[in-house]
């Protein structure tokens, strides 16, 4: 099915989503564009268990803001919610990356007697009490990420993590023929997603002769990534390839290599338009795992489906094939700016309105 759609050629991601949703109506509930999200368990929710009469109030608790990916995800989520006339109110809260604030946010959402809560826990254990309280209060809870069984939410939608890191790792392994020295640019120290991605990398490298020569935390941030990369490049650390836990850092590092006139080495990226642009313009050799912002809309749709009394699988996972040199042209949007992330669930006019260059 995936290859089917790719045959459509240079269609934009969004229109491809539109086409896809028209052509595939087999499943009862369509959470995202097909191929983006697959069930990971046979276990289903009980039909009608969460059914409520609309209109609903839905709350979402997110750890915090900080980068353009999150902005786009939130934007898509709010757009999806706003365009569902059964959703009377959609309350978005963000905790500024403070676990205690997230607990407070959840408590407040429960106090507001919302019909459903979408939670993206900073640490599953820290919100367990509140999730249980919500469920006890008859509130439907869906989770972004995998709580590994800690949370009793109805449905979990997960993405990225180990698969993200592994995709890059596997590609590097292939590029380097199993030996060499790489640098690892990690994200924010201590963040769960970051640790998982890194574990994915180490798993991929297991049994090879590839060595991690330098390992730095660039906070997924262009500025910091650039400084760190300049530093590593100029301090003469050997490097055959670079693994990145996020695309902004790849962009930064490419800029550094170009700046000092050092020949580029294979670098992994991410499905971000800014990165895809550099990739395209410079004829790089790269790979970009997709960490889709449409996870947000998917969470809203899943929540709505459950409130409508539909049945869903208990958990899903998003693991689309990464963007490669071959498929790059399908994803890159020359007309959009660097802040755009593939793949989006927004309709085309919204995309071009928000992300015009």
């Amino acid at each position, binding site marked *: 099915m995936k290859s089917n759609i790719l045959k459509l050629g240079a269609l934009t991601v969004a229109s491809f989503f539109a086409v896809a949703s028209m052509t595939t109506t087999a499943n009862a509930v369509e959470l995202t564009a097909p191929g983006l999200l697959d069930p990971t368990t046979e276990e289903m929710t009980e039909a009608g268990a969460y059914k409520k009469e609309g209109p609903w109030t839905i709350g979402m608790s997110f750890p915090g803001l900080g980068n353009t990916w999150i*902005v786009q995800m939130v934007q898509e989520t709010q757009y999806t919610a706003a365009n569902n006339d059964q959703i009377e109110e959609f309350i978005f809260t963000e905790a500024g990356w403070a676990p205690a604030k997230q607990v407070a946010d959840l408590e407040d959402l429960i106090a507001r007697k919302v019909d459903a809560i979408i939670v993206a826990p900073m640490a599953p254990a820290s919100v367990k009490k509140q999730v249980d309280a919500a469920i006890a209060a008859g509130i439907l809870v869906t989770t972004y990420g995998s709580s590994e069984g800690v949370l009793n939410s109805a449905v979990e939608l997960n993405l990225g993590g180990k698969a993200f890191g592994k995709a890059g790792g596997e590609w590097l392994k292939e590029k380097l023929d199993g030996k060499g020295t790489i640098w690892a640019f990690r994200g924010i120290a201590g963040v769960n997603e970051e640790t998982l991605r890194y574990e994915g990398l180490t798993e991929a490298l297991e049994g090879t002769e590839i060595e991690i020569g330098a390992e730095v*935390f660039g906070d997924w941030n262009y500025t910091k990534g*650039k400084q760190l990369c300049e530093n590593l490049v100029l*301090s*003469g650390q050997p490097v055959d390839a670079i693994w990145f836990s996020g695309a902004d850092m790849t962009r930064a590092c490419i800029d550094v290599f170009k700046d000092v006139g050092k020949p580029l080495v294979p670098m992994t990226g991410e499905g971000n338009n800014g990165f895809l642009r550099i990739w395209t313009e410079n004829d790089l050799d790269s790979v970009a795992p997709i960490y889709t912002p449409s996870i947000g809309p998917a969470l809203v749709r899943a929540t709505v489906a459950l409130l409508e009394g539909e049945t869903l699988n208990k958990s899903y996972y998003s693991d689309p094939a990464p963007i490669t040199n071959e498929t790059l042209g399908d994803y890159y949007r020359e007309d959009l700016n*660097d*802040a755009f992330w593939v793949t989006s669930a927004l309709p085309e006019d919204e995309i071009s309105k*928000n992300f*015009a260059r």
Partner: protein
Amino acid sequence: MTVMAKNSPATARSHLASASRFVLNLPFAYVGTALLLLFAYFTRPMLLSPLLLLLIVRQAAPLGIAVIGQSICMRVLSLDLSIGGVVVAVSYILTSGALPFSGPVLIAICILFGLLVGATNAFFITRMRASSVIVTLAMAMILTGVVISLGQFHAPGDAPEVLKFIGQKRLGIFPIALFVWLAVVIPAALFLRFSVFGRYVDAIGANPNAAWASGIPYVRVVTIVHILSSLFAVFSGLLLVGFVGVGSMDIGGDLALNSLAAVILGGITFGGGKGGVLGPAMAAFMLTFSFNLLTSLGLGEPGKLMIQGAIIAVAAMIYASRRNK
């Protein structure tokens, strides 16, 4: 005393003593930079390549510019914690696309905005006699809060080309940011050194009551100081945004506290100090160099933070206790 010293056998020793006194009287940043360079020479000589040093200079430039404003604030016994907020706002103005203007116009708007923020800070500090810590802290909260609420549905776009050019390109091996830095530091240093304004800044720092009682335009000077500080923050933000190339909401977040550290390391204390404008500039370089050194030593974030904290504490203790003797 000098006459006695001349022909005595202790001459050499007294030369040494006065030399060491001279060194000890220098702002910590000079000594610290020398020590760091020496340490790098033995552990990571690669860091001393001219190319990398120049890149570190470029990395240091935004902090180096912001620190000028912070240092004048501290010299008049005030403080500006709103620098980070101003930078975030500048990033928003330049990259949000909410204002449909060309790059130069946006830059002009940023400068006007800086004037406004500085004047507002100054109003509360001088007219309302509110604590500058609180006022500028509140200002930072307001600016970041407003920017984030405005920006939450709009991913920031690219920086104006002219800024990208300034922030990223170089002339020969010299980054343009270095020239921008110099173009700001040198006039600022000269102005503070030789103008009536600079004298008044020294006077207010040395004794605010006396400055008040002797008819120095205290309120005006403090107002100008805060406006200047916000303007330097704007320049710092322009450079940062140009360097990054795209807007970002966590840009410049550590600028306020880092600038505070750089001012101390640069020999400025509340109400004076010997560092002038160059001491803090050197300190901005020193801090940035230390981040790079620590990274290349493979010390993780924890180690970096600990060493950074320890350096600030030790420098402040040495400097403050010496001043009080």
